[in-house]
């Protein structure tokens, strides 16, 4: 955390969050504070609860919140419906983006951005404004423009789906981007494009939380803080050198019960 940031009010404050899935406690008291301008990485072995945390924050149904709370810009995040969270400025980049044949990307993007603009009291974009905005972002993500007329993620490769997630993020300009395993399934070139997209969103007004298993994304998107989630708790936090250490030593040394 930069010293200059410490005095700022948190964008996201997770306090002792406990979550059950199908009767099983998956998150057992997670606490985390994220301020605008910061990039955090949440790492951990498979099954540690990383994706659960991302989905709970975005409001996916099917999770039972049994303790703790989450504030987003001082508001009770968990009391908001998923669409309200998105319009408030929270973006979830999906690990497995769904395919929706029959709804094209342009329509989805336009509906999403205008929902956000209405929330902010701004006028909706007309077709011309929308296209000029989207074209610039498409170029940055190295996506062919014909994609706008195609169904959402329809027939996309894994890498194309992830690029599309980042494109949506760039168009929506969220205050907080939660990127769930965005690096999985990407080859080196695609990883670079996706990382450039993420870096272009970095600003003192926004924050990014990267959920990842490997540290290779962190070579391109350098985090301010790294947290290790294991068995439903954050068991260690540090700077980016923690990610390098995990890469070298694996997760066993840190996630075994004795380390907790």
């Amino acid at each position, binding site marked *: 955390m930069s010293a200059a940031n410490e005095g700022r009010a948190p964008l996201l404050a997770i306090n002792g969050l406990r979550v059950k899935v199908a009767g099983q406690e998956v998150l057992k008291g997670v606490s985390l504070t994220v301020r605008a301008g910061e990039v955090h990485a949440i790492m951990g072995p498979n099954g540690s609860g990383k994706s659960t945390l991302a989905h709970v924050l975005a409001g996916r149904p099917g999770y039972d919140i049994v303790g703790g709370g989450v504030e987003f810009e001082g508001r009770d995040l968990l009391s908001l419906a*998923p669409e309200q969270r998105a319009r408030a400025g929270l973006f979830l980049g999906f690990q497995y983006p769904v395919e*929706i044949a*029959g709804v094209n990307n342009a329509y989805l993007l336009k509906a999403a951005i205008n929902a956000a603009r209405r929330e902010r009291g701004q006028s909706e974009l007309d077709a011309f404004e929308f296209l000029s905005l989207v074209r610039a972002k498409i170029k940055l993500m190295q996506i062919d423009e014909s994609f706008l007329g195609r169904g959402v993620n329809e027939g996309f490769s894994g890498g194309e789906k992830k690029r599309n997630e980042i494109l949506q993020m760039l168009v929506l300009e969220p205050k907080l981007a939660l990127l769930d395993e965005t690096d999985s399934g990407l080859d080196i070139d695609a990883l670079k494009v996706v990382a450039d997209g993420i870096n272009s969103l970095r600003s003192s007004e926004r924050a990014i939380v990267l959920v990842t298993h490997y540290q290779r994304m962190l070579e391109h998107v350098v985090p301010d803080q790294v947290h290790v989630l294991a068995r439903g708790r954050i068991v260690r936090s540090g700077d980016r050198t923690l990610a390098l250490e995990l890469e070298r030593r694996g997760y066993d040394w840190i996630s075994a019960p004795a380390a907790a």
Partner: protein
Amino acid sequence: MATHSTTAGSATLERIERDYEAVAAQLPDAALARPLREQAARELRRLGWPKVTDEQWRYANLRAFDTVPGFRPSLPASARTSAAAAPPDLPPALPGFTRMLYIDGLRQGGALGSEPGGLEHWPPEQRLGLLGDMFASDTATLKIRGDARIELLFFNSEAATASYPRLQLQLEPSSELQLVERHLGAAPQAALVCPTAMIRLAAQSRLTHYRLQQCGPQTVFTDTLSAHLAEGAHYRVRQIALGAASARTSAHIRLQGRGAATSWQSIAVGRHQQVQDTALKVEHLAPDTQTEEVFRGIAEERARIAFNGHIHIAASAPGSDSRQSLRGLIEGDGAEIDLRPRLQIDTDAVRAQHGATTGALDDNLMFYLLARGIDRATARALLKWAFLGDVLRAIELPDVRRAAEHGAAGQLPDAAVIGALT
């Protein structure tokens, strides 16, 4: 085989016979000769009125026939002098298509069907096709050589209580026809629309048949179709069922020649208390024949939608390939969807895939859209639209696709949202 009792539904059959006796002498021989009509009437009497206890009629809304005020069709003389026969506001003509307009079952602007029609042998499950034989007041008889594009527009005016659009179509070898068959209705009151189509496709001929059913809200629509395909013939159907209080399509496609192929893609959208029921039977009778069957149905409010897809691959049809995908979406608390895939295979070395699913909207898709800030109503509308997309996007002709999309969008409660998509 048991004799068919006429006790159940006999009142309906009696009404039909009474109306037939009263009008028989006035029905034009040019549409169908009197002896053939009599033959059809005898056959219907022999078979009896269908019963819901019969598997083939389980989902049909036979009680809807009680709402039909009478079975007599408009006759040529009365229709020409009737004010109701004046052309109403009709959709614009399709570019490149020859339009044939029928009002209340009668051809407007010139006689057609110079050759009187013949009889189809309707099997018991298609017995309501006999009504068309008995009562038809006009027959569209089309023989196609070379390439053609024809639009058959059947319009039911407020004056009609019953109409029997009748199509007898023959494609000569290697010919190709794009046919748009559209049923529109203005009548707010109960009426019967009872089309019959008898189709023969000669070797290597190709028919693409677009069928849009947008009848009035009180209409009882009973549609019976039979198609015979010779070697290498190809029959594609794109059917959009939207209108009527109660609609049934009963179709029987026979793939008789080697390499004959059919592709039936259809959607049905029902709301209020509509019933949309399709019974489709495809018979593979020759080697290397192919079927593709896609159905997407949405039942809103208290609507009931059924699709009974029976594919029979006979012992004479090795090397056949059939694919069937039936999906239903239940959107209303009182809505019902019944999908019945049935695959009957009497030979080895065939490929067959079939699947049928009915349910609500996919939660994962829903969450994805919500997580982008899209409100719930819009997300629902988008996903319903996407659900119908498989079939709508397969309509190759842009004008027909747009008409189908507008019709389908208008049938969903979320029309305002979907309007932006079409």
